[in-house]
């Protein structure tokens, strides 16, 4: 019963304690990592469950609810954040200057707290607060290095994020004035297609687009995610953008399925497709490793938006909608594992090679073999090749595309996979290349920096092999629209 509260309280407590512990903040991982994994695991075993903070029920009090979807995201976050934390402890220990070591830990736990709050909240105002916390921590993570380039990236992030927050807040206010509540369970079924509501929903969606970096609101993401230190990049690409997508996903499938007309879902699908195309082409054009991975995130987030047309707007029950919905969830989870693994592996490679130009990567397959293998496994999942969670997601969504007869979305899914192969095999080629004799030597890195990416990449692979349990988990308490389609 208390797991949802604990899932928020644990990282929150750790966040506060980091201020006290200062230089020794990384020690907090020892209690927090096992405890969070245990709490998330127990919660996944006991869904659906809810916890009213202080015993006050909604709409007066704050209720944390965990259905299968929420539990799956909390569990994924626990695994990915634990990995990133363990990696960061070693990564920052090797750095010369220590200022960013201080700043990283409170921000790390703040992101974790905010993400779990978002996954477990059923109230639009709480979501707003958590989203603000998440965004502020994320912006600070981008600026962690303090270099001019990163500050510029962070400022650009601020612009987009403030627009997003403002739009979201106005939308929430409009909803409150129309229905007198912001509790999603209470709003369910009450929302009607009035003009004020439509404006509100449009604003909220646009705000969340900006925070999820959906094309054409993506411009902030590549410099921010590519510029941050490796553990921060992993945190941003794997978790932060997923949290804002999660709100959008919940909102439409749980609260507003009846408002999702043909125009809306096609618009979402088209933006998603453009993101896949644009992100992939930009990734192909990059000459540095981290921008490739960052643009890959722009592309991969695009797939998530295909769920709206694939599960939507038929006016009657659509048997394939559940496949599309599950596929989107699997894609979000698999991408989190794979992208975290890839950014962390890239971090190890950059430490070994000294910089992240593709041209200096030759021979890394020999100096950091485990990280290279992890990079390859993560790439397999991002390309949507079996056996991986990315493949299962693609299979489910493709099947929905064919079953619904809207095969043009299948072209996006398959074409996006091929483009991903093009941009991911560029660094992979370099890993296989023999290093020139006169090239500067490659350094060894600590084994933690190679093992953590491997574990996370194996997580992405396992999600596609041991997929029956996660598949059943996310279906627990899923909304009607997840079974029958939007509207």
């Amino acid at each position, binding site marked *: 019963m208390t797991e949802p509260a604990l899932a928020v309280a644990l990282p929150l407590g750790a966040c506060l304690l980091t201020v006290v512990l200062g230089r020794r903040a990384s020690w907090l991982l020892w209690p927090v990592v096992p405890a969070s994994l245990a709490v998330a695991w127990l919660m996944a075993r006991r869904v659906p469950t809810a916890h009213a903070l202080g015993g006050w029920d909604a709409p007066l009090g704050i209720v944390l609810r965990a259905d299968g979807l929420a539990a799956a995201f909390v569990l994924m976050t626990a695994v990915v954040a634990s990995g990133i934390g363990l990696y960061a402890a070693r990564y920052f220990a090797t750095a010369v200057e220590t200022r960013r070591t201080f700043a990283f830990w409170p921000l790390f736990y703040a992101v974790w707290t905010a993400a779990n709050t978002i996954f477990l909240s059923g109230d639009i105002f709480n979501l707003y607060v958590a989203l603000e916390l998440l965004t502020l921590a994320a912006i600070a993570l981008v600026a962690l290095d303090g270099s001019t380039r990163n500050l510029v990236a962070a400022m650009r992030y601020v612009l987009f994020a403030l627009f997003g927050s403002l739009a979201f807040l106005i939308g929430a206010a409009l909803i409150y004035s129309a229905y007198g509540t912001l509790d999603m369970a209470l709003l369910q079924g009450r929302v009607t297609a009035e003009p004020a509501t439509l404006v509100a929903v449009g604003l909220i969606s646009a705000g969340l687009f900006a925070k999820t970096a959906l094309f054409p609101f993506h411009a902030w993401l590549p410099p921010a995610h590519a510029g941050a230190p490796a553990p921060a990049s992993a945190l941003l690409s794997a978790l932060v953008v997923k949290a804002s997508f999660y709100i959008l996903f919940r909102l439409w499938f749980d609260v507003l399925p009846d408002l999702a007309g043909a125009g809306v879902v096609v618009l979402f699908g088209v933006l998603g497709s453009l993101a896949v195309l644009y992100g992939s082409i930009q990734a192909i054009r990059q000459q540095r490793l981290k921008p490739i991975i960052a643009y890959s995130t722009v592309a991969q987030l695009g797939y998530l938006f295909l769920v709206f047309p694939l599960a939507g707007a038929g006016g009657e029950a659509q048997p*394939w909608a559940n496949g599309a919905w*599950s596929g989107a969830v699997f894609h979000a989870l698999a991408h989190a594992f794979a992208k975290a693994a890839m950014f962390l592996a890239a971090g190890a490679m950059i430490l070994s090679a000294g910089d992240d130009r593709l041209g200096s990567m030759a021979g890394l*397959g*020999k100096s950091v*073999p485990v990280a290279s*293998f992890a990079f*390859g496994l993560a790439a*397999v999942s991002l390309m949507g*090749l*079996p*056996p991986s969670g990315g*493949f*299962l997601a693609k*299979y*489910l969504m*493709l*099947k929905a595309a*064919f*079953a619904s007869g809207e095969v043009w979305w*299948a072209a996006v899914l*398959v074409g996006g*996979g*091929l483009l991903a*192969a093009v941009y991911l*095999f560029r660094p992979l*080629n370099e890993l*296989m*290349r*023999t290093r020139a004799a006169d090239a500067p030597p490659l350094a060894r890195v600590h084994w933690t920096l190679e093992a953590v990416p491997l574990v996370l990449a194996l997580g992405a692979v396992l999600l*596609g*092999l041991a*997929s*029956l349990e996660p*598949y*059943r988990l996310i279906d627990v308490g899923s909304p009607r629209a997840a079974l029958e389609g939007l509207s």
Partner: protein
Amino acid sequence: MNAWLPVLTLATSLLPALIIFRLPDHRARARTLVNLAGAVGKLALVAVMLNGVAAGEVYETRWALAPGLDILLRVDALCLLFLTLSAFLWLLTTIYAIGYFGDAPNQSRFFGFFSLCVAATTGVALSGTLITFFLFYEFLTLSTWPLVTHKGDAKSIAAGRKYLAYTLAGSAALLIGMVWLESMAGPVEFAVPDSLLQLPSLPLVIIFALLIGGLGVKSALVPLHGWLPAAMVAPAPVSALLHAVAVVKAGAFGIVRIVYDVYGFDLVQSLGVHLPLAAVASATIIYGSVRALFQNDLKRRLAFSTVSQVSYIVLGTALAGPVATVGGLVHLVHQGLMKITLFFCAGALAERIGVTRVDQFDGIGRAMPVTMTAFTIGALGMVGVPPVAGFVSKWQLGLGGLDAGQPWVLFVLATSSLLNAAYFLPLVYRAWFVPPVAAAPRGREHGLMLIWPAAVTATVALGAGLFAGFAFSPLSWAQLIMQRFYGS
């Protein structure tokens, strides 16, 4: 126990891969031990299952990915045909590769991916559902890539890029075909008769084209064959693996599965898709042979020969008659034995006396007698000279063509055999009967592990032809499969 055997078979190459990846490069002895233990263990398991399946046993393991979507590993007669071949050739190729590489660098990486590749091939053979097949088929694509690019120079990287461009485009076609089919028919399990009969025929024809097109990349059907000659830059054991054990065979095997176990004869015939496939296969047979004729580089000549020979399997399958089926299936084994012999020889010639081109063949029989004897047997087999195994394949295919009412097949076979003779016999003649050039590079035959695998496979190829009538010969096994297909 029966449920564990398929998993164990997979584990005999998966576990060695994981162990070998962790071994440092200098632990050559440990690596060899793990490699050979896995290969011998797999052969033992295969022997047990051969006996069992002949007696009607069923071995299968199921694992659900999502409700209704199963990974299914199942041992049937067709599976064992491919599995036995790959298990046997894996053992020999491993021994050969150990001899070939000596103490070259990066061997742990090489043998790790090599074992992964064989694990994937085993999975392809064991697959009992379409999605399982796709899973292992892609696993094979990915685990082969580091072998093609193994040397790490610009040429290898470029060959790897070409390999991926072809195979990933092929897998996209395969994926679309598979998902489209399953969106109409539900998850497809092999050998469930009549499961597709209710579906409209136009989509079925398009899906057939997509599936065969996707598989045709690996089995090197013209015009999808371009990656195969390019991949010749890889080390010789990799060529042996690509051409005989794993990659092209996985494509051909997949085509057999699609025709017999997904669509089924009756449906293929009523859709009328078998004759276009037979025509493509015939065109590939002739085209590959003609191109082989003009290659001066030995490995490229052998590569185009593979393009041609693998399509015999496809041709036999596409004729969709019982006798032709046997011819196609038996050639799956025979081509593997003969082609791996030739590649083993080509690698040994290049390593020991530096011969990589056809015009260097003069008189090399004296320097490399064992190798060139094996080469001669393999080459004669390819031409179809009795009693080597290739003759049995061609004989069956010819009979099959007549039996299926397609006598033009005889013309294709005759033309191809003439062309085979034209590009193989001059090699044999030069090696044995032309005196060596005085300035030829000198060297001699040595190294047990590099030389003898070719002799073994050549002997087996000879034996498979001589003893074709005995139980457990490739021919008898292919007849067993055919009887089970036709339910008689």
